[in-house]
């Protein structure tokens, strides 16, 4: 069964500190992994996907198939990064629904 685990409900860091939001998944094949973000009073929106191998707003995420992880990282956190972050998983082919984790709230303090 598909499952996404985000072990931390809240991650609190100071501005300029490195950030790592953890995401582990369970899937029998080769999934597609995504990070979504929801800023205060805004909609849930796509941040990045692993197949793009891109950096968005300074965030990167590497898919580690051996550890079944897709952690989100940023070397220097900014106050505007404070938001709710959701890791999500989808199967690679056909119509595969997106399965979300419970989310991690990132709080960046000045």
């Amino acid at each position, binding site marked *: 069964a598909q499952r996404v685990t985000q072990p931390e409900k809240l991650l609190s860091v100071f501005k300029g500190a490195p950030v790592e939001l953890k995401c582990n998944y369970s899937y029998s094949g080769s999934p597609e992994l995504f990070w979504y973000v929801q800023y205060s009073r805004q909609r849930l929106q796509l941040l990045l996907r692993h197949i793009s191998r891109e950096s968005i707003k300074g965030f990167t995420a590497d898919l580690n198939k051996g550890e079944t992880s897709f952690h989100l990282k940023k070397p220097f956190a900014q106050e505007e990064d404070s938001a709710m972050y*959701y890791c999500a998983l989808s199967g690679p082919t056909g119509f595969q629904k997106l399965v979300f984790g419970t*989310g991690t709230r990132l709080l960046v303090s000045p």
Partner: protein
Amino acid sequence: EADIYQTPRYLVIGTGKKITLECSQTMGHDKMYWYQQDPGMELHLIHYSYGVNSTEKGDLSSESTVSRIRTEHFPLTLESARPSHTSQYLCASGPRGGYTFGSGTRLTVV
């Protein structure tokens, strides 16, 4: 502007009432989805649609129903609202993984 719209944003309604949550998108997406989210919990897929006249139930059993008569419109209906239906309902559209979400409807049944 191409976007996805949900109305109402907030709804407080009495037990036994029939309600329809509206969702419309102007992006021409074939695939649309309804997710349910309780506070602090993950998003659960309750309905999805491949296109016009196509509707499927998602992972989470829901007493709600949906219809897809037009590409742009994907309303969700509860025939008889109950307090257990109190939740946030999110509509989304788009290809696999790259969803665009609406602002959501926060439903409270009293």
